[in-house]
């Protein structure tokens, strides 16, 4: 069970990180979510296809609890740390590294400006590569509304990115 759990844990950790913005908070949420996954009687088996969306849903709900509990804003520490790691990964080609970093920052900034629900749905589809059915399970919404909600979120992101590029030629 632990191997499959470990794979789902990395993706779920990033989801928590994307929602909370703090490494330490995301780790706390993961710890709680893994405990629930082990202890919860109605949890799907970790080797079944249902496990990933179920686990992501637990992580999402725990992250929302954490946000409510703390009621604090994200700070810049997270982005600095992430971007330092990115720089070290692509430092072999400085020009490409700069472009990648700038694009990365622009996309992340635009994502942060989206309302929470829109950011979640875009990230679940385009970053975590979940199917519409899985997204519906994670967000606890009907499958039929996923496509329209996702399209609205993408158009909003497109508008934000267009503005960002326009502001920083």
């Amino acid at each position, binding site marked *: 069970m632990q191997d499959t759990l470990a794979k789902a844990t990395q993706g779920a950790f990033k989801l928590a990180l994307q929602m909370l913005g703090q*490494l330490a908070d995301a780790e706390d949420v*993961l710890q709680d979510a893994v405990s629930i996954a082990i202890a919860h009687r109605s949890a799907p088996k970790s080797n079944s296809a249902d496990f990933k969306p179920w686990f992501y849903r637990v992580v999402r709900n725990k992250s929302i609890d954490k946000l409510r509990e703390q009621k604090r804003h994200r700070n810049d520490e997270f982005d600095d740390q992430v971007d330092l790691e990115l720089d070290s990964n692509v430092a072999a080609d400085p020009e490409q590294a700069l472009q990648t970093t700038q694009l*990365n920052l622009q996309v992340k900034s635009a994502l942060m400006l989206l309302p929470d629900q829109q950011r979640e749905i875009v990230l679940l589809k385009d970053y975590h590569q979940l199917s519409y059915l899985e997204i519906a399970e994670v967000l606890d919404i009907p499958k039929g509304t996923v496509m329209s909600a996702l399209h609205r979120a993408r158009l909003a992101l497109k508008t934000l990115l267009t503005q960002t590029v326009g502001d920083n030629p």
Partner: protein
Amino acid sequence: MKNTRLCEHIGEQLSGFLDDELSQQENQRISVHLSQCESCTKTYEQLKQIQGAVSETFYPNMEQQKMNAVLQDLTSRRMFDFAWFAIVSGVLISIVFGVYHFWLDSNIPLYSKVVMSLIWGGGIGLFLTVLRQRLIISKTDKYNKVDL
């Protein structure tokens, strides 16, 4: 730029087409429309670019050491819970039996039973009060994770 009434109906299905979530018939319809409509093709290409950019956004993995700790910690936590359960059960059973035999022992005078019960009852009461306060503090103290 050709903009037909069909564009208004395509809307969200552009995303469905991009994600390969449409039926074969719908896919074909969108595909034919895109080959004829410059405006929708442009939107589709932009959405595709954004999708690519989001998928390549960098977020760090959880450190392997920490993840191992989280996963391994569960086994030890289960054992920890079980150990506590065993200890608390043992102590409770001992107390119940102790009190039962103490009160039924005819060799001990009644005043001694009452005094001893008051002293032990008071002691246990104080212990539970302090324990309760400590538990409340440990759950609500926002500085309890601060390393001094």
